[in-house]
């Protein structure tokens, strides 16, 4: 028995190395700047473009109760301008350069990017360094974006059939952890956000040691590093960054009052006021009046709540503006970094990737109970969920659909999948692995993802081995462990009466 399993793992290893050879390794360089910014650079000259990206490790899980949706709202405000960039000009710089830009916010991180012609790399660095050093938000911008974000919520969630399902699932699947709300937040909380919330949020999370600068494209690494040092290396951290930002955003009166203890007698001198309002650079001003400010990074608060698996099934019905009922089943699963993550991911592939997958073949095609049936993991930095979701066919009772899905899950729990099916999953993984990372934007983001979430950038080349190491038994085991009745939220979506 032992010998056999050893033999088997030998086979797996050989296959893995074959897979790895099939795709060229993605080369990159990574290092930390003194202020804590993590930098990842990937050079590829096939198209004259470059992706400049910044991944801040802040998302909706860093929000306070009563301010849900804030991280995303804040992301919108980060396009308003900076000390050196006028309102409504940030995006125009990028467009005039022939580029495009955008951002998005998840539970765990906020991601900004510019895609530029490669001769405009320096512009991208300037823009992103400006955003980190001294983004500027005016009241008019806050009020406008507050409404824009509320429209975004209506468009993506409130006015979409089944659009609330992630919200409804997460609020039940988590009791304590901030994953219990979704990044878009609530209208009430969006309305409640105050000016001091912006100041605190920026101060706490938009700091050098909380961001990864990932760049991919037609770059000269040596030149890129020089510019990065110039634009980002020059950004202070810790107390010095706070004073730096205050110097630029506070009025003289407020600044002098806030720092009168630190500056001492000089604070009341006319020279101090004169320098404050003069052309003197912030850096020079700080050097003169605050020569010994600490640049030691401040600690970043993170949620420490650890929620275990659910202990009792949660069942509910949601009435929505829909015609066909739907069933959503969410199972609590371990965090992205957990060893079971890969097996759970493959379990969901087994259920719904491709027409030959279990849910598609059996429930959609054979039994014709559902219009669609999908299974997908929603892995997060802290323990997350995996979801089975189906929309019932016309006239089919959603309870029937639920039963059918449960039977498929039960089958996997009871019977080991065949070698053939296991091989199919691995081939799909191989194909996905090789075909992914075909764009510079994709590579820059993936590199940052691996670093930020798993602290292992090299996974871009090696993660496939972790998938290929998963066994049939692992898939059965995670199905038994996580896809259980006690560990799930079951939601029925039913049509609202007029």
């Amino acid at each position, binding site marked *: 028995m032992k010998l056999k399993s050893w033999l088997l793992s030998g086979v797996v290893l050989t296959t893995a190395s074959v897979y790895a050879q099939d795709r060229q390794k993605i080369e990159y360089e990574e290092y930390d700047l003194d202020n804590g910014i993590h930098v990842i650079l990937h050079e590829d000259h096939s198209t004259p473009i470059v992706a400049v990206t910044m991944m801040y490790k802040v998302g909706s899980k860093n929000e306070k109760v009563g301010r849900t949706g804030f991280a995303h709202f804040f992301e919108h405000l980060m396009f308003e301008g900076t000390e050196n960039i006028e309102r409504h000009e940030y995006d125009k710089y990028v467009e005039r350069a022939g580029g495009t830009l955008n951002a998005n916010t998840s539970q765990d991180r906020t991601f900004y990017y510019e895609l530029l012609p490669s001769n405009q790399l320096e512009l991208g660095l300037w823009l992103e360094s400006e955003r980190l050093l001294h983004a500027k938000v005016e009241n008019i911008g806050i009020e406008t974006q507050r409404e824009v974000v509320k429209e975004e919520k209506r468009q*993506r969630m409130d006015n979409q059939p089944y659009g609330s399902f992630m919200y409804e699932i997460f609020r039940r699947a988590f009791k304590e952890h901030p994953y219990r709300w979704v990044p878009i937040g609530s209208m009430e909380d969006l309305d409640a956000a105050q000016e001091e919330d912006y100041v605190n949020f920026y101060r706490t999370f938009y700091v050098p040691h909380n961001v990864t600068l990932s760049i991919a494209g037609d770059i000269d690494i040596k030149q890129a590093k020089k510019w990065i040092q110039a634009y980002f290396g*020059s950004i202070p951290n810790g107390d010095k960054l706070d004073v730096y930002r205050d110097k630029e955003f506070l009025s003289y009166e407020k600044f002098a009052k806030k720092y009168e203890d630190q500056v001492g007698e000089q604070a009341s001198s006319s020279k101090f006021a004169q320098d404050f309002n003069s052309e003197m650079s912030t850096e020079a001003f700080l050097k003169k009046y605050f020569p010994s400010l600490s640049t030691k990074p401040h600690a970043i608060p993170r949620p420490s709540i650890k929620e275990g698996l659910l202990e009792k099934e949660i069942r509910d019905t949601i009435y929505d503006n829909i015609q066909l009922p739907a069933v959503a089943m969410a199972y609590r699963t371990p965090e992205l970094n957990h060893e079971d993550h890969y097996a759970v991911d493959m379990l969901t592939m087994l259920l719904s990737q491709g027409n030959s997958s279990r849910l598609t073949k059996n429930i959609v095609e054979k039994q014709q109970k559902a219009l669609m049936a999908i299974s997908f993991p929603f892995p997060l930095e802290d323990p997350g969920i995996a979801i089975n979701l189906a929309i019932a066919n016309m006239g089919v009772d959603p309870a029937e659909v639920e039963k059918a899905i449960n039977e498929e899950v039960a089958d996997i729990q009871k019977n080991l999948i065949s070698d053939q099916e296991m091989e199919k999953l691995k081939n799909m993984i191989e194909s996905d692995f090789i075909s992914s990372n075909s764009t510079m934007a994709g590579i820059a983001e993936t590199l940052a993802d691996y670093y930020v979430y798993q602290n292992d950038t090299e996974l871009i080349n090696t993660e496939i081995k972790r998938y290929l190491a998963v066994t049939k038994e692992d898939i059965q085991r995670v199905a038994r462990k996580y896809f259980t009745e006690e560990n799930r939220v079951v939601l029925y979506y039913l049509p609202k009466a007029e």
Partner: protein
Amino acid sequence: MKKFILIIAVIGLTFGSFAQIDRSKAPNPQPNPKIEINIPDPMKFENGLEVIMVENHKLPVVSFQLFIDYPNALENDKAGVSSIFGELLGSGTTNTPKDKFDEAIDYMGASFYPNSRGFYASSLKKHTPKLLNLLNEVITQPAFTQEEFDRIIEQNLSNLAALPSDANSMLSNVKDVVSYGESHPYGEIITEATLKNIKLEDVKNYYKKYFTPNKAYLVVVGDVSADDVKNYVEKYFGSWQPGENIEKSDFEVPTTTGKQVYFVDKPGAVQSVISVGHTVDLTPGHEDEIKLKMMNQILGGGSFSARLMSNLREDKAYTYGCYSNLSSDQLVGSFSAGGSFRNEVTDSAIVQILAEIDRMTKEPVSETELDLVKKSMTGAFARSLENPQTIARFALNTIRYNLPKTYYADYLQKLEKITASDILMVADKYISSNNINIIVVGNEEIAENLNVFDNDGNVDFKDYYGNKVDRLKTVPEGITLETIINDYAMKKMMVSTKDELASKIKSIQQIETFSKARIEAAMADIYVYEAEGFPNKTANYTLIKSVQGYSPVGSEWFNGEEGEAVQAGNKTIYEGEELEKKKASKFPIGQLKYLEENSTNAVLQGIKTIDGVDYYKVKVTVENKEDVSFEYYSVEDKVLVRTERIVVDEEGNEQTMQFVFSDYQEIGGLYVPKNMEMNAQGQVFNFVTQSVKTNKKAKAKAFSGNFKVAEKALKAL
């Protein structure tokens, strides 16, 4: 040497960071990178197939896109046949049945997406021959089984059922209908009826007629060489036999004159989805096309600085996104602008969108805007080249539309030469804010606000298939739910004042109605006895007469205090809310209970016009129940002519029933309908009133559950 480097490093450290850069200004770009485009020539094969190949060895992946460029045709009462054909193309081959086919594709980790004009398939290079083998089978021997056909039709019916959930799909249907008209291929809408008309044979014929290599393009992209492709095509596409050439037809589109507002009601909507637009006479490659694309980019392209976005989002915060779209097409192009907007600002958003379109056609764009858009479009063009499929698409367009060979190579130069007056010229020539369709899918509450935009002052209401819907009109002053119900009661009892009604009820306290319906399919007759008695007694009894003789179907009775219902042998004794409901019932018409405090709630919604006749529409709901009924009372004749009932069972499933009462006349001294059509979930019964008996006292035995007399009378009919 070493020392020297060290010194530089120290200098760098000291003065480095801040000394080197000036944050206050954007850095200057490096010299422009060169953009090279090489459009490959197609290879033509004997059977007519033309092959475009784009070599790209970055990833060991090869994709095959087959595109058959047959002309568009009307599908008429079988709208959807092409799309059903496209789906069925993915349902296996005679050699590899569907399940095995799916298994084979998935086992390679490959992808295969069929459509009505071909497919897109892709796999790792090492699986290419196996994939091609399957593609060859798809082309030459698709299975087209009845079983799969039925399944796909059913699935599409479910999809259609879900249509009213999705505002964007509803909008797209209505937009197609109003822009292109019903006699244009783009204006045809797939409905339950057209889907049900399609037969497997139609799909097979479709395949025979259209799925030929005569005018087909195969686009191969990825890690291949020209030799590989030649071999592949000969081996896997060589046996594909040409068919007959298909003549191109011409189609007319309606012209949009003035502003026309179309509104589609989506109950519960919190946003209005708006699209304003019209068709555009613009074919691909036309000399105005690039200018128009630039015009559209300035008006509502994808960027934050485009006019619609900067006005409606960044300035007014009406929306998350507002865009415009302009496309060329071989038959007819289209222009549209819109987005999703919260209900309250729907009309304001339309005002702004129209104003931006209008401004576009009246004022030249500024040099700053022009400069920005040129740079942004140049950049977008360059970025698009990262994907090798882009070059393949350029090559395909070049042959499909017969564009000059250098069309794409010259694109950036052409872009550069465009002037503000060019933009104004094409805007004025092609787009209009005056002759335009304004389509809104949203909450009916806001519909009234949109009349102002319509040239004739009235919004046209549409259903989600684009059919005209009659809307409720406002009820004239003095008419209330009370007057309507009382009028109906008086009409039934053939009196003209409330006092007369009161005295008439003293002399007639019981009404018995006997009616009958024939069910041809079952060769049976249904007999129904109904009784109503003062003050709130009710009873009914149903018999069915078939070849086996008479058998009771169900009955109900209520004697004013208690009662029960028997259906399919199951007896339910009235209690709780059900009992209260029965008690609230009123003589001589049950609807009188709407006028009193009880669990039934009725609301007069307005006047609805059906087939040119006006009706008062009343919505009836019951506390704690999801059931809802709509009753329609004739404005002219004051009687109930139609009831629509939606019953929601415990699992939330809705069942609809519809009753139509017609041919009102005097029978047995009362004004009652001679005919009653009942439609329960598509099953239709036509009841004909046989006789009506009245009595001074409400003493029928049926009120207490004894149906012997009633049964005898029914059998005597």
